[in-house]
């Protein structure tokens, strides 16, 4: 049991015809990509832009994204800001506590690779991908709300290409 266990977690550019995309796939992917509940979790300056994105002007809810306070009910974690070494273990724990399938958006330079702090920041984790697998990197410091939305759309594309079927070579 657990059909979705086979869900590939890495993006692979499938060549067309390589894979049987069933309509079930489509339905499941569609549901996942259109209802990404985000874990309400902010770290630093980028979190403010994330809040602005969720606010009326940009409205994350349009994409079906609502913040959930508990990781148990969220699908996507937006790492919005500087991950410090003190925080890193917690971020990892929170990520771990999310149920599969789950996605990670790295928002802003800091979580991409330490950003402005990459050089002298003795206490800054240089990129959140050192602890958890990141799906989409959104550049910017902070990224504009639109950039976050674009990243989300990017992530949706990635989800769209996922499949539960085995690859047929």
């Amino acid at each position: 049991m657990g059909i979705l266990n086979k869900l590939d977690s890495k993006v692979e550019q499938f060549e067309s015809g390589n894979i049987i995309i069933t309509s079930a796939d489509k339905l499941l992917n569609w549901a996942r990509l259109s209802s990404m509940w985000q874990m309400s979790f902010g770290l630093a300056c980028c979190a403010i832009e994330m809040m602005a994105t969720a606010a009326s002007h940009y409205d994350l809810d349009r994409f079906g994204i609502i913040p959930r306070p508990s990781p148990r009910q969220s699908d996507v974690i937006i790492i919005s800001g500087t991950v410090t070494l003190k925080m890193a273990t917690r971020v990892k724990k929170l990520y771990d506590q999310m149920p599969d399938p789950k996605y990670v958006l790295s928002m802003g330079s800091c979580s991409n690779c330490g950003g402005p702090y990459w050089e002298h920041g003795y206490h800054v984790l240089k990129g959140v991908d050192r602890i958890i697998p990141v799906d989409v990197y959104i550049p910017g410091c902070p990224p504009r709300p639109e950039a976050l939305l674009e990243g989300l759309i990017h992530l949706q594309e990635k989800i769209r290409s996922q499949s539960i079927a085995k690859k047929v070579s």
Partner: protein
Amino acid sequence: MLSDFGQVLVFMIIAVAFVAFVLLASKVFYPKRPSKEKLSTYECGENTIGETWLKFNVRFYVVALIFIVFDVEIVFLFPWAVVFREMGMIAFVEMAIFLIILIFGFIYVLAKGDLYWDKPKPVIPKLEREIFNSQK
């Protein structure tokens, strides 16, 4: 009457069956990748300190207690309300006595403050010594 309750039973069975069906069906689909971290208790990203044992307030109990007394009272009130129109004044007086006795109890617990939840008891911080008074 029995058939009506039978209907209620059917409602219950359908509800249970529905939940069971949905949960089982989802079990077929969802991925299972448990790990130690994933199964650990959520506490804002921290490890839990101590037991999940809350020092519960007695208020919880007192509320339940008072509720149950009122519950019983309500159980009496319903048949009373149904026959109220037919019985008229007698019913009213009898119930009034009944209620007033209980309301007395209610007022007692109310006055004693048993019903109030824990109010915040703010401790206003103080300095050991007055050192500043020009602004007042």
